[in-house]
């Protein structure tokens, strides 16, 4: 299916709304074209292509809400689904947290759609696989990777006059390289909106180098170490921390953000003053959606400023309960960095551990945001400003709050998973046991 233009989407949404007999009606449409290729053992294993489109119709009478979805956009099917949603609404229990549709909002302009990415074809995907497999074979390593590219649009309209439209393209790529003797492993991740910024060979070669350099790792004692975290390693801990920036669970007293004696940590300093975390859908390196699922406008927002909690996420319902303005969940995350390159950070480190990636991260204690997980695919010991040798993987038990309080140096930012995260040097990061896994 084609990606609908703004005009085509509006026409379809207006048609759906024209059938509505409910007190309120809100209609969302979305569609995506996505292709993928998967390879392992230096050979392509699967390849796929999918296109999906979907319309979601939500009707309400008072606080009773009904939802119907459809994937066939004929007049008859749309009319029938509008009617179904109204029937379901009449039968639904009262939802005391229902918020009526919003009026028109003002949205920022963001550029997330690139024709270059939308035009990716099976040949391109096969070449990406070859860019990993061929150099891998030549260097005695085995490649396993996955590429997924997509073009998508989403649009919504309601009976209060709101209309919103967005389109985007994405490419996500990961590859794991394992040395053929099974003692070394390297990994790399890349994501872009514009395929012209993606270089599969460059990425694959980094993973190959890590695989070869991490062969025959030595065991060192678990304990507290100075670590240099690559952005792909720290992002998961930062994302997990960010999920606690929810005003409702904080107000309810069941979150890290809940304060002793009641209330929330809004306005409190929780991490090092050099930590600034914000979101901005217009950032050219990590553009994000300008509106959230309920139609709220997503704006630039400071979450941690000088280490202080500057904002919490407020749903429309919770904002009404608390008499404040709603704060939608952001569409990206940006942590400010410094000038130091990875090499600079290594050079200034007397003793430390370089971490490529963290894996299987799970909450241990939601009260303190303690997480556990393991290093993976390239862990190295640094001594006197140089990488000395690969080391066996560690299990960690650490809280991102402690981690960001133990900040030594912020390095350059890198895009990971649609967000910008800097290299970071952290002291006293807690590794609790060794793993034999490669």
């Amino acid at each position, binding site marked *: 299916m084609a990606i609908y233009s703004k005009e085509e989407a509006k026409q379809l949404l207006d048609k759906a709304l024209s059938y509505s007999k409910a007190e309120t009606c809100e209609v969302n449409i979305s569609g995506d074209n996505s292709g993928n290729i998967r390879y392992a053992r230096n050979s392509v294993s699967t390849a796929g292509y999918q296109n999906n489109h979907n319309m979601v119709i939500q009707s309400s009478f008072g606080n009773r809400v009904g939802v119907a979805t459809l994937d066939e956009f004929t007049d008859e099917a749309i009319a029938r689904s509008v009617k179904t949603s109204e029937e379901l609404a009449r039968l639904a*229990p009262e939802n005391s947290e229902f918020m009526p549709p919003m009026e028109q909002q003002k949205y920022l302009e963001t550029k997330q759609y690139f024709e270059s990415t939308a035009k990716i074809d099976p040949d391109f995907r096969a070449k990406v696989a070859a860019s990993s497999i061929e150099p891998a074979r030549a260097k005695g390593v085995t490649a396993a990777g996955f590429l997924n590219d997509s073009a998508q649009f989403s649009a919504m309209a309601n009976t209060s006059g709101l209309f919103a439209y967005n389109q985007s393209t994405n490419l996500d790529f990961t590859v794991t390289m394992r040395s053929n003797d099974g003692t070394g492993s390297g990994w790399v991740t890349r994501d872009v909106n514009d395929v012209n910024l993606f270089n599969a060979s460059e990425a694959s070669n980094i993973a190959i180098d890590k695989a070869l350099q991490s062969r025959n790792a030595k065991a060192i004692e678990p304990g507290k170490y100075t670590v240099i975290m690559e952005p792909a390693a720290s992002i998961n801990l930062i994302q997990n921390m960010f999920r606690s920036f929810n005003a409702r669970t904080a107000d309810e007293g069941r979150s890290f953000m809940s304060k002793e004696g009641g209330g929330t940590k809004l306005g409190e300093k929780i991490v090092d003053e050099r930590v600034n975390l914000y979101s901005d859908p217009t950032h050219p390196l990590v553009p994000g959606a300008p509106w959230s699922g309920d139609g709220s406008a997503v704006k630039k927002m400071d979450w941690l400023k000088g280490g202080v909690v500057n904002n919490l996420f407020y749903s429309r319902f919770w904002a009404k309960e608390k008499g404040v303005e709603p704060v939608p969940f952001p569409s990206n995350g940006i942590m400010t960095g410094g000038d130091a390159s990875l090499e600079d950070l290594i050079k200034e480190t007397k003793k430390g551990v370089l971490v490529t990636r963290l894996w299987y991260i799970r909450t241990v204690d939601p009260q303190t945001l303690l997480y556990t997980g393991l290093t993976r695919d390239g862990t190295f010991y640094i001594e006197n400003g140089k990488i000395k040798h690969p080391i066996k993987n560690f299990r960690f*038990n650490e809280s991102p709050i402690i981690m960001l309080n133990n900040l030594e140096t912020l390095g350059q930012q890198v895009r990971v*998973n649609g967000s910008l995260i800097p290299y970071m040097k952290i002291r006293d990061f807690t590794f609790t046991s060794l793993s034999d896994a490669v």
Partner: protein
Amino acid sequence: MKRRDFIQIAGLGAGATMLPLSMFGKSVSVEALLAPGLDVAQKKVLADVALNTAKSMGASYADARIGRYLNQFLFTREDKVQNIQNTESFGVGIRVIANGTWGFSSTIDVTPEGIKKATEIAVSIAKANSKIQKEPVVMAPVASHGEVSWKTPIIKNAIAVSVEEKADLLLKANAAAMENGANYVNSALFQVNEQKYFASTEGSYIDQDVHRIWPTITATVIDPKEGKFKSRQGLSAPMGMGYEYMDPDPKEMIEGPGGIKMFRNRYDIVADSIEAALQAKEMLSAKSVEPGKYDLVLEPNHLGLTIHESVGHPLELDRVLGYEANYAGTSFATLDKWKSGNFNYGSKLVNLVADKTQVGSLGAVGYDDEGVKCKEWDLVKEGTLVNYQAIRDQVHMIDQKESHGCCYSQSWNDVQFQRMPNVSLKAGQQKLSPAEMIKNVEKGIYIAGRGSYSIDQQRYNFQFGGTVYYEIKNGEVVGMLNDVAYQSNTQEFWNSCAAICDESDYRMFGSFFDGKGQPSQISAVSHGSATTRFNGVNVINTGRNI
């Protein structure tokens, strides 16, 4: 991890209510869930279109799966129904082998024309990919079953029970928790019905009606003065059962140490909610564990996840061979260890079996998604690694001639591949109850329910927590503990297995949304066991002051 993970809205229970509808199918009315699908004769005619088209285009093998996947999910918190989702997904997936290479295509157009077109695409994909194929597909032989059917042996179809009755039960459970001191409570009920028809060029036409159910609750107690909170999850298990699982039966309730109530083939959600609230409150002032070596007494609702992670996943043959290297990882249980015939996975007491047949389990079906009749087989026998989990195109790699029958796809829309069957620890042969087991423990911890779990990409090093912990001193349970997690290595852990309770304590745990593959697919799987003792396991204290 996908970018959308960053924009997932946080909050207790919110994650579940925000499950994208499109993942499960179209949103429909309850009546639509109960409407009959196509009859078997119609499905056979349509499936034959796929098989004949594939053969006429030169495919050496083809299978067609006409699937109707129904879900109903209810979500509540305190005195409110938050969301009720009814979804239906209907379509056909066609898989072929041409030039020794797999091809797959699917469509929602379940007509002779639509199926013919999708089959042509599947064959053309296979032929195109065969140019870069290095290892032609080798399929193990399979019996021709003719026209057969299978149904989960349910007593009450959960989807046919009125939404009001189910919502009322969840709200009743919530109220019971609130009356017993919970400040917040979330509950949910997941119901799944897979109506799937499989046909292949091997001569099988298999109609199956598969049911699964999973009730959940979480009670939270807060101490605003200290800024502390504790949550206690329900001790239900997801099951391959109908709504009869929700009918309490005192005979199916097991009382454990500290009076903790646990459940076998029937669940009492109201009784469990009361316990959840009371125990969450008790946790707020429970003693923090002293780190060190302890003998662990692990009950089945906890041990199931440890089995899942440390036995189920590492013995998936595709992981062992490297097909999952870029995502979930590989495995420590390499082919050379298996071939040696003496790889010591655990102590002599340890017998781990795989099966797709156990009544009431999530994995139970008559036939897998490539038409292989399901069975039980040994993975670890008296402590020694003896087999893996493999499907038709894999068993030749371990010199076997018969598929294990554990091929599965989450939908008609996704290609089937090797998925974990039920993997269970056999109960002990000697008569032994949990109470008798505890009597012999000097310094130990009893752990019930699932908790935090993390394991490395080759399944050596793991760290697990539970739902509730009780300290054992000199054969007596002396009180509740907090901040417990145990860290071990898979082989070391299973070798520390010192005693297993008998069959009377055996029950199942389950994982309802187990993920694997890229693009990721979910599956549901059970793990049975009886309460088991592991000696001298390293326990850490997870408490922190921030």
